[in-house]
C-alpha cells in the first residue's frame, strides 16, 4: 500500500475558521440584511476556494496537515486534509454557496423571524462540518461533531412553536446520547490502541483485540455515529427535525449533518477498524444487516408520508444507508460506490428539498395530496424535482444511477446477492414514493392555482443549477473535481491489500 505523503499547511485551518470569523460580522450587521447576507456569501465563497486549493495536492496523494494544539496528552487537535476529507469538504462548502442564495430567497419570501440567528448558526454549522471532514483523529472529530450538534439546535427550533421545540428536544436527546457513547468508544479505542489517529486500513493492525471487545467497541461506534447517519432504529430524530426551515433540511439534514454521520461510519470502518478486522470478526455483517433493514423500512415508511418534507426525510434515511451498505460490503466497487453516493445523493436530495421549500414559500402547501397541478404553475421547479427523483430511483443518466451501479457491482464482488436484491427493491420503492408526486404535479388538474407562478429567482436558480448538476454528474462523473476517481482512490487506499 502506498504511503500517504503529508505537508504542513494552515489552509485546512483557515477553511474551517473562515465561517466562524463571519459569525460576529453577521451578528453586528444584523440590522442591515443585505450586508449581513454579504458576509455569509463571502464566507461561503472563500471557504469553497480554500477547500478547492487543497484539491490538487489531495489528488496527488499528498495530504495537508496542520496541528493546532495538544488537546489531551498525546492527542493533538489536528487537521489532515486527505482525499476523503477534501471530497466531503468540497461537497459541503460548494453546496453551502447555493444554499445561501436559496436561504436568502426563502427566509425573505417567508418573512422568517430571527434571521440573524439563523445565518449565524448556519455559518457555525459549516465550520463544524469542514472540521469533521478535516479531522486527523477521533478526538478532533468528536470536538467538531459536538459543535455541529449544538450549532444545529437553534436551526431545528427556529420556528419556536410547539412542534419545533419538541423536535429540538428529540434531536438533542438522540445526538447528545450519541455523543457520549462516541466518547466512551473513543476512550476504549485509546486504551486499546494507544492512538486515535485515522489511518487507512485501520489502527488495530498490530493489536490483538478479542472478538468480544471488538464487537462491543464496534456497536458503541455504530450507536455514536449511527444517530447522525440515520441508521434505524436511531433515525427518528430526522423526520422530526423537518420542523426546521427548508434550507436547513436541505443542506444540514440531507448533506452536512447526516453525511457527517455517514462520514463517521466510513472513518470507523475504513480508518479505525480496517476491512480485515471488520471481515474477520464478522462486523461487516452487523453493519450490512442494519443498513439493509434501514433501506427497506425507510422506503416503506416514506410511502405512507403525506407531508412532502417527511417523505423526503425518510428517503434520506434510506439513502444514507446505501452509503453504509456500500461500505459494509467491503469490496472495492461497493466502497467507492458508497463514497460516491455521498456526493450524488447530496445534489439530488438538496434539489428535492429546495423544490419543497419553493412550493411552501409560494403556495404554503406542505402535503403531497395538495400538489395537484402545480407542475403547470411552477414548471422549472417541478422539472428539477423530476430529475432529482429519477436520480434517486437510480434511472440513467442521472448521477444516482452511477453510484447505484457501483453499489450493485460491489454486492456481486462481495458475493452478496441479498444486498443486490435490496438495492433493486429499494429502487422500485423509490420510484413508488416519488413518481406519484410527479404524476400529481403534471397530470392532475389543480384548484385555486390562478395567479401563482415560480418562486423568486433567488430560489429557482439554485434549484435548476442543482438539478442540472445532478444530470451533468451522471453523464460525466469526473467532470468536476475528479469526484469519481477520488471515491475510487479512497476505496483503494482503505481496501488496499485486503483479500477475502
Amino acid at each position, binding site marked *: 500500500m502506498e504511503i500517504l505523503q503529508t505537508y504542513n499547511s494552515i489552509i485546512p485551518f483557515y477553511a474551517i475558521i473562515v465561517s466562524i470569523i463571519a459569525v460576529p460580522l453577521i451578528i453586528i450587521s444584523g440590522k442591515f440584511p443585505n450586508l449581513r447576507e454579504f458576509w455569509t456569501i463571502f464566507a461561503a465563497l472563500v471557504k469553497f476556494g480554500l477547500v478547492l486549493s487543497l484539491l490538487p495536492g489531495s489528488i496527488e496523494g499528498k495530504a495537508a496537515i496542520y496541528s493546532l*494544539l*495538544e*488537546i*489531551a*496528552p498525546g492527542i493533538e*487537535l489536528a487537521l489532515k486534509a486527505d482525499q476523503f476529507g477534501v471530497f466531503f469538504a468540497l461537497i459541503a462548502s460548494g453546496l453551502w454557496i447555493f444554499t445561501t442564495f436559496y436561504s436568502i430567497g426563502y427566509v425573505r419570501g417567508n418573512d422568517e423571524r430571527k434571521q440573524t440567528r439563523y445565518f449565524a448558526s448556519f455559518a457555525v454549522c459549516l465550520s463544524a462540518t469542514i472540521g469533521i471532514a478535516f479531522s486527523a483523529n477521533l*478526538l478532533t472529530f*468528536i*470536538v467538531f461533531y*459536538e*459543535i455541529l*450538534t*449544538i450549532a444545529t439546535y*437553534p436551526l431545528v*427550533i427556529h420556528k*419556536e412553536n410547539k412542534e419545533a*421545540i419538541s423536535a*429540538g*428536544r428529540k434531536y*438533542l*436527546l438522540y445526538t*447528545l*446520547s450519541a*455523543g*457520549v*457513547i462516541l*466518547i*466512551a468508544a473513543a*476512550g*476504549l479505542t*485509546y*486504551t486499546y490502541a494507544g492512538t486515535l489517529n485515522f489511518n487507512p486500513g485501520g489502527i488495530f493492525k498490530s493489536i490483538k483485540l478479542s472478538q468480544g471487545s471488538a464487537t462491543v467497541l464496534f456497536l458503541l461506534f455504530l450507536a455514536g455515529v449511527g444517530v447522525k447517519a440515520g441508521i434505524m432504529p436511531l433515525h427518528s430524530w430526522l423526520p422530526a427535525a423537518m420542523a426546521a426551515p427548508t434550507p436547513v433540511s436541505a443542506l444540514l439534514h440531507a448533506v452536512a449533518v447526516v453525511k457527517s454521520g455517514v462520514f463517521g461510519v466510513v472513518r470507523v470502518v475504513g480508518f479505525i477498524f480496517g476491512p480485515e478486522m471488520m471481515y474477520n470478526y464478522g462486523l461487516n455483517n452487523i453493519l450490512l444487516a442494519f443498513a439493509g433493514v434501514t433501506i427497506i423500512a425507510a422506503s416503506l415508511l416514506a410511502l405512507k408520508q403525506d407531508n412532502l418534507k417527511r417523505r423526503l426525510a425518510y428517503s434520506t434515511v434510506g439513502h444514507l444507508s446505501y452509503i453504509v451498505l456500500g461500505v459494509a460490503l467491503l469490496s472495492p466497487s461497493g466502497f467507492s460506490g458508497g463514497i460516491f453516493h455521498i456526493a450524488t445523493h447530496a445534489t439530488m436530495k438538496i434539489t428535492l428539498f429546495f423544490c419543497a421549500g419553493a412550493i411552501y414559500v409560494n403556495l404554503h402547501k406542505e402535503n403531497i395530496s395538495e400538489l395537484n397541478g402545480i407542475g403547470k404553475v411552477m414548471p422549472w421547479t417541478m422539472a428539477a424535482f423530476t430529475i432529482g427523483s429519477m436520480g434517486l430511483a437510480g434511472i440513467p443518466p442521472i448521477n444516482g444511477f452511477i453510484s447505484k451501479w457501483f453499489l450493485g457491482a460491489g454486492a456481486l464482488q462481495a458475493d452478496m446477492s441479498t444486498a443486490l436484491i435490496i438495492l433493486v427493491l429499494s429502487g422500485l420503492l423509490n420510484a413508488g414514493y416519488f413518481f406519484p408526486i410527479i404524476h400529481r404535479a403534471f397530470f392532475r388538474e389543480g384548484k385555486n392555482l390562478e395567479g401563482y407562478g415560480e418562486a423568486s429567482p433567488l430560489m429557482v436558480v439554485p434549484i435548476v443549477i442543482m438539478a442540472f448538476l445532478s444530470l451533468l454528474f451522471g453523464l460525466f462523473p469526473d467532470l468536476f473535481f475528479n469526484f469519481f476517481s477520488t471515491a475510487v482512490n479512497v476505496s483503494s487506499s482503505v481496501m488496499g491489500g485486503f483479500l477475502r
Partner: protein
Amino acid sequence: MIERNLPAIIPLIFLASALLIPILGLWKKRISFPLAIFATLFSASLSVYGFIYVIINGTVRYNFGGWIPPIGIEYVYDPLSSFVVLVINFVTLVVLTHSYIPVTIDLEVKQTAYYSVVMLLLLGFNGMIITGDLFNLYVFIEISSLAGYALIAVGEKKAPFAAFRYLIIGTIGASFYLLGIGYLYFMSGTLNMSELAAILPMIKESPTILVALILIVVALGVKMAIFPMHGWLPDSYTYAPTSTSSLIAPIGTKVGAYAMMRLLFFVFGAEYFSKELPVGDLIAIFACGGIIFGSVMAIAQKELKRMLAYSSIAQIGYIGLGIGLANPFGFIGAVLHLLNHSFMKATLFFIAGNLRNKTGNSDITLFDDSYRKKYPWTMASFTIAALSMIGLPPLAGFFSKWYLVLGTIENSKWLYLAVILISSLLNAIYFFRIIEKVYMKSPTQSKDSGTNNFEIKRDEVSASMLIPTMILAAGLIVIGLLNVVIVNQIYKMMPVGM
C-alpha cells in the same frame, strides 16, 4: 526569602485581615470591602508566584516556630497544595468582586462582620490545604466550618435553620475526624502526615488503622458533601445569601475533596485504600450514587440556586469517583474537575445572583425570552457554563470527564463509565430546560407584559457583577483549550509511585 515562608504567609494574611477588618470597621464601615479584596488579591498573587516556584524548585516545607516535626507543626507547599491554593484564592478574588453589590444590598449593616468572617473562612480553607499536620487540619476544618455556618445563617428566613442543620451534621463529621486521628496517633505516635505515611506500612495490618481510615473518610465525606452525606448542602446553598453561596459552593466542598485526596493518596497510599482494602470502590460507588441522585434531583427543582445545589452534589461525585478509582487518570480527572467545577459553579451561582439582583428571585418557572433580551451577556455566560457542565468539547467540563472515562476504562469499571455518560445526559436535561425557556419561551402568558413585548430594553447587571461572570465563563473556554498545560502540571502533583 519570601518563598521559604510562603506556606505560612498566605494563611496569616487572612488571619490578620480577619482581625483588622472589625477594628478598622469601627472607624469606617466601607473600608471592610477594599480590605478584604486587598487581602485576597495579595494572597492570590502570592499563590501564583508560589505555584510557579514550587513547580520549578520543588516542595517547600515550613516548620512553625522553628520546631521540627513531630513536635512542631509542619506546613507543606507542594505542587498539589499550591495548585489548590491558587484555584481557591483566584476564584475567591473573582467572587468577592462580584459580591460587592449583593453584600451591600443584602447585608447593609452587617458587612464589616460579614467580610471579617469571610476572611476567617479563607483562613480555614487555606490552612486546610497547606497544613501537613493531621491535628492542625482538624483545627482549620473547625475554623472554616464555624465561619461557614455564620455566613450561611445571615441569609433568608430559613437560613438559620439550614445553618443549624449544617452545624449539627458538620460537628458530627468533625468529631469522627478527631476520633480517626486519635486512633492513628495511638498507633503511630505522630500526627505529621509525611511521618505517618512512612510509619503506616509497618502497622497497616492492625484493624485500628482500618477503623481510623473509615472514620476519616466519613468525616471528610461530610465536608465534601459526598452522597449520602450531602444532607446539609441543598438548604444551605439555597437559603444562604447570594454572596455566600457563590463563595462556598465553588470552593467549600472542593477543600473537603482536597483533604480527602491528601489523606488517602499521600498518607494512606493508593495501594492501601484501593487495592488492599475496598475503600476506593466504596467511595466510587457512593460517588456514582451521588452523581445520579444529584442530577435527578436537580431536574426536579424549580429554583435555580436549589438546582445548582443538587448539581453540586452530582459534580462532587465526579471528584469522588476520580479519588475512588485511585489510578493516574482518575487522579487527573479529580484534580482537573476540582478546577473546572469551581469555575463552572461560580459562574452559575453568579448568574443566579445577577438574576436575583435584577428580578428579586431566580425561579426557573418565571424564565422566558425577555431574560435573553434584558440580560444578554449573563445568559450567554450561562449557556457557556451549562454546555461545559454537560461536558461538550472543547469546553473545560469535557476534559475532566474524558480523563475520568479513561480512568474507568483502565480499571474496567463499566458501571462507573455508564454513570458518567448517563449523567452527561441528565445534565443536558436540566440545563437545556432553562436554555430553551430563556431563548424561546415568549412572555405572552402574563397579559400585561405581552403587549409591551417589543419595548424590552437591555437591562444588564452592573459591571462589577457582569465582568466577573464573563471572566469565569471565558475561563472555561481557555481551560478547555489549554487543559494539556494544566494536566502536565497535574502529573507533577501525583503521589510518588503512581
